[in-house]
């Protein structure tokens, strides 16, 4: 066999490996039992080389980029010399390579004869892994021990034999064992697909060539990443943002500080200065912090770079232990998704300082998590987990998207009709709210409201939201989005609720969540009056706010722009301004909170 690098073979193998990773993801998507997996695509698939270096990741959850390597490294190290054909590894421990307990990793080594050529990798967010709250995602847990079953790196299959002891133990410690086992089966099916298809590649190309080109694919991604980084401006760019609170110390804002240092073809994302680890369950692990750092940087790089180890080599992530970005025992982390989204937004903020023309203003802050669970009168468990998001910040060239998944979690919403047929719930409202988007030459996206009426006799409602006190920031003259809101309506009486809470609910209670509006980008007085009119005619903006935020005056019947009135009002508003707008616009100066 020739040792010369062949660009044609390279491209063919690259396509084949990424095709397999995608096919693994499809398998999980189609066979899973949980809404979180099928609709939110809260899972990832990947192929790693024989040493555990990630070669190809399937297209699923953007915020999972780079989550696999940390976990796989632990397995490869711990089981060195004891990895055999027929083995399957399982783990979820956040303190040993995992992310949070619901994310269960399943790895299968792939062999050609006696020679290990690859690992099939999957990680799935499971609907429930035990712990004190249905769904295992409470934001008010304060120790990992409350959050569910903790699985260190173990063999789920040992040389083809199922580890019945482990399975029995798992089944006894989760609320809906049939669902957990079904989803583990989906993960195994994905590993099986990977194994079969890699065998075909080995047949065609031989193990040596496969190994060689796996290394080349990683190097290739590194070259592309470094070439793209080299084109970004050098310098140090810092951004500060705040999470409202951790749900325990409700008056204490939580600072996130991201400093991006860039020189030549190297880029560093440094989280030093971010909050100490918090009591509530929103602490991030190092792997999760890395994932969101990579994902944010990816947003300003060209789209066609393969997602693998090569990307990670070019981007260094610093997260001091003991902080919210790299927790230590006994930190709780079940609801750390919130922190991931916000780290993503914070890193994008730093990138907006670096390349203002390429980055959007703040989104709604990522998924609001809503879990409703309990037991029916027949003592059957039910768990409904929903995630709501959908609002982007304004962009330097266009309005923020509305009704579109977050950049860091490309989830799908669950059908209302399916929800109502499967769960003791009625959805009363799911539509955009007017007058909430941050004003700007390119406005933020309009948020939506979602209302859930509970139809079982009693249950527990658990909510994880944010962006109320610290609203989605606007950029370069754009205003911040309006805050999120929670209400519990009982007996017709709407009661405001905190951003994060657990509450007993009973038949007929209605929970209402309003997402935060996206931040605006650029000076609202520069927005074309016709676009302002279009928003008014589409009931997304009131005539009053068209006037107050945009200086646009409409005719009395609100069907046309009063051009003279608008010109006059805008001139007066400009004259009344004191100096240049700041690069970042908050509601009130967040510094005051410190």
């Amino acid at each position, binding site marked *: 066999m020739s040792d010369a690098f062949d*660009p*044609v073979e*390279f*491209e*063919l193998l690259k*396509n*084949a490996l990424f*095709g397999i990773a*995608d*096919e693994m*993801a499809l*398998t999980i*998507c*189609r*066979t899973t*039992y949980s*809404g979180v997996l099928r*609709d939110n695509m809260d899972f990832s698939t990947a192929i790693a080389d024989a040493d555990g270096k990630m070669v190809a990741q*399937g297209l699923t959850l953007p915020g999972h980029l780079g989550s696999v390597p940390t976990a796989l490294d632990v397995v490869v190290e711990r089981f060195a010399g004891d990895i055999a054909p027929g083995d399957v590894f399982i783990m979820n421990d956040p303190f040993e390579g995992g992310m949070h307990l619901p994310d269960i990793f399943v790895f299968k080594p792939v062999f050609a004869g006696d020679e290990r050529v690859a690992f099939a990798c999957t990680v799935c967010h499971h609907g429930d892994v035990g712990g004190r709250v249905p769904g295992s995602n409470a934001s008010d847990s304060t120790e990992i021990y409350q959050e569910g079953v903790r699985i260190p790196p173990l063999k789920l299959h040992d040389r083809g034999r199922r580890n019945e002891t482990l399975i029995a133990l798992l089944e006894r410690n989760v609320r809906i064992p*049939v669902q957990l086992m*079904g989803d583990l*089966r989906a993960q195994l*099916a994905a590993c099986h*697909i990977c194994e079969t298809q890699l065998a075909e590649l080995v047949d065609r190309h031989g193990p040596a060539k496969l190994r060689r080109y796996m290394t080349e694919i990683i190097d*290739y991604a590194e*070259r592309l990443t470094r*070439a793209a980084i080299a084109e970004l401006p050098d310098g140090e760019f810092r951004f500060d943002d705040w999470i409202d609170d951790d749900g325990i110390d409700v008056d204490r804002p939580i600072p996130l500080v991201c400093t991006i240092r860039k020189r030549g073809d190297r880029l560093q994302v440094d989280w030093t200065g971010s909050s100490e680890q918090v009591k509530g369950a929103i602490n991030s692990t190092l792997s999760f912090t890395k994932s969101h750092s990579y994902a944010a940087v*990816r*947003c300003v*790089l060209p*789209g*066609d770079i393969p997602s693998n180890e090569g990307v990670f080599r070019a981007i260094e992530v610093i997260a001091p232990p003991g902080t919210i970005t790299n927790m230590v025992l006994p930190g709780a982390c079940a609801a750390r998704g919130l922190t991931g989204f916000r780290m993503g937004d914070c890193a994008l903020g730093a990138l907006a300082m670096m390349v203002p023309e*390429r*980055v959007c203003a703040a989104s709604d802050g990522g998924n609001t998590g809503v879990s409703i669970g309990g037991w029916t009168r027949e003592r059957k468990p039910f768990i409904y987990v929903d995630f709501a*998001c*959908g609002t982007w910040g304004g962009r330097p*060239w*266009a309005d923020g*998207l*509305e*009704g*579109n*998944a977050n*950049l860091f979690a*490309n*989830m*799908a919403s669950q*059908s*209302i*009709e*399916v929800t*109502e*047929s499967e769960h003791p719930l009625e959805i009363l*409202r*799911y*539509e*955009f709210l007017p007058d909430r988007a941050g004003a700007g030459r390119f406005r933020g996206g309009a948020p*939506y409201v979602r209302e859930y009426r509970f139809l079982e006799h009693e249950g527990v409602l658990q909510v994880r939201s944010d962006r109320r006190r610290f609203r989605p920031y606007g950029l370069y003259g754009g205003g911040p989005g309006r805050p999120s809101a929670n209400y519990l309506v009982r007996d017709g009486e709407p009661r405001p609720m905190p951003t994060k809470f657990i509450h007993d609910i009973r038949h007929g209670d209605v929970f209402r969540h309003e997402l935060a509006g996206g931040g605006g980008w650029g000076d609202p007085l520069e927005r074309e009056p016709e676009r302002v009119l279009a928003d008014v005619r*589409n*009931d997304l903006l009131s005539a009053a706010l068209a006037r107050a935020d945009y200086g646009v005056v409409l005719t009395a019947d609100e069907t046309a722009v009063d051009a003279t009135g608008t010109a006059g009002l805008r001139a007066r508003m400009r004259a009344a301004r004191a100096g240049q707008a700041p690069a970042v616009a908050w509601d009130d100066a967040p510094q005051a909170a410190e």
Partner: protein
Amino acid sequence: MKGLRIGVDIGGTFTDIVLLDDDGRVLTRKVPSTPDDYARGIVDGLAALFAASGVGPGEVEEVLHATTVASNAILERKGARVGLVGTEGFRDVLEIRSLRMPRLYDIAWEKPPPLVERRLRVTVDERIDARGNVRRALERADAERAIDRLVAEGVDVIAVCLINAFANPEHERLIEAVARERAPGIPCTTSHDVLPEIKEYERTSTTVINAYVMPVVAHYLASLRRELDRGGLGVPLLLMQSNGGLLPAEEAARHPAHIIESGPAAGVVGAQVLAARLGLPDVVTFDMGGTTAKASLVEGGAFTRSQDYQVGGGIMRGSRLLTGSGYLLRVPAIDLAEVGAGGGSIVSVDAGGSLQVGPESAGAVPGPVCYGRGGDRATVTDANVVLGYLNPEFLVGGELTLDADASARAIAAQVAEPLGIDVAHAAYGAHQVAAATMMRAIRAVSSERGRDPRRYALFAFGGNGPLFAATMARGLGMRRIVVPPGPGLFSAFGLLYAEVEHHYSRSLLRLVATCDPSELEAAWAELERRAHAQLTAEGFPPERQELLRSAHLHYKGQSYELEVPAPSGTIDAAALAAIEDAFGREHERTYGHRAGREEPVELVHLGLLARGRAERPRTPAGMLAAGADGSRPRAARSAYFGPELGWLETTVVGRAALTTVHPGPCIVEEYDATCLVPPGARAVLDDASNIVIELD
């Protein structure tokens, strides 16, 4: 009277017309499309064909038609001004979609704008629950207010989709009645009629698409009808549906959502019937043109259907993971996977030093470099010219002259030099990478569904299909290729093979273990009653009506269903057990595992396929394909087959020469396509003038 049958396939550039007489004689004609009034091009083309063949319009029995008019209305956003009535609290179902976007890490992503803007989306105060109970009754006055508002906005069509209307259509019916009364000139389409299935976004989107293309399609069909009548062709006009069945024009005007993918479907139908006649029940169809390639699966003599797809989403690179690129349409359609690779796809080297093919395309204008029409970027066709696969001097029977040197210069400068390899190797690489990209489409319909492509024959057509078929087959381990006559206008042929078909469905969520068999039977009986009425109205006597039941099921909690056939007649416990078992087997076949007995299987939809069979076989057993170019002199040229084999002297023949077995390397040149038979392969004609290629 002779029973002439005519198939007409309208594409963006050409209209292909195929005429078949009772003796199996086939005449073909390719004429330029006339987008300002497509009907004119058709009628003119037919007139020319009649003049050339000596037959007259009086001998024609029916006209079968595939058209892009509906999909173009969506792609070009030139559909109707639609008003949408929804449930209060859910004004934005259409626009929020499923949230998901087709791209990751892309701040520049733009959602396709909704087909109905927000001010034309109105709501009424009503609510029906998931079981069909009315929780909040709709007041007539409220429906009147909604209709009046849309009328005042000057809408062309009214679409109605209410939450849970699949379970109880009573409120949608009331709104429809009010619309008829207060706006008699405005057509109204309701979701329970278009798609009585669960999932509000899918149903809303489908109903809206139906409304959006309705006036365009109705106008087009009326105009075509008029022109045909004027030309003495007062015969039935049948439209190809996306699902591979024919639909009378009147019905197509009411449910135009069914004819969106009409052209590609016709090709698959043709492949299915021809393959069956060859005794090949299992084939993968492969249709490659200038900008895209499409694959689909025929299994056990039947094509496979998908339940939904995205219209106008642009070309995906074979990924079915990321959806949301276009407009979701949930009607049964032949399951086609499409990738952005064709003859015009651009070949380039990216910043990381990797060879890329597509999805960017030079299209027909400026086209490949060798066309000499201003194209300066190397394309797949240029690579094929460099390799000697395409005639270096001309294509399309001499109508298009080629500049092979220009191709070689472009491949050298844009591909070979950046990669540091020679020109032939670079061109060969482009050919291989294009084939690999297209293999993803084939995998999407085979291995991603648990089917091993090696068990299937490859049925190749389209202008470029026969050129790539052997490379693809080899890459996938497939052994046999079939290239039908007239591969370049095969979709028009396909029309001649289709039967009239209607699809009915209804959501019924029941656990199979605990459901009441008589309820299922009643639900199927109701669908069958509608199907009978429809087919009878179309003139099919009972003995030519064929009704096939199917069930769509999943394990409770899953969100994708698998479709399995269901028994006709009485539904009892045994029938349910058979359905459940068929589902388990299908799940195992598709995903490699099935759950144990303890896991509940849930029925989601009931389906019914109603077919009206023609009085006699629609096509004679043997067709004498015109276009088999027998007069072509035998020639030879040098072609490149990779670094190991290098340049080989390659025979160039016409199709008719293949009455004897020709081993590769060999090239078959025809008017509308070129077929490559590489070394290690043998080609021969079968009785029906198909080229059959066997690979070692």
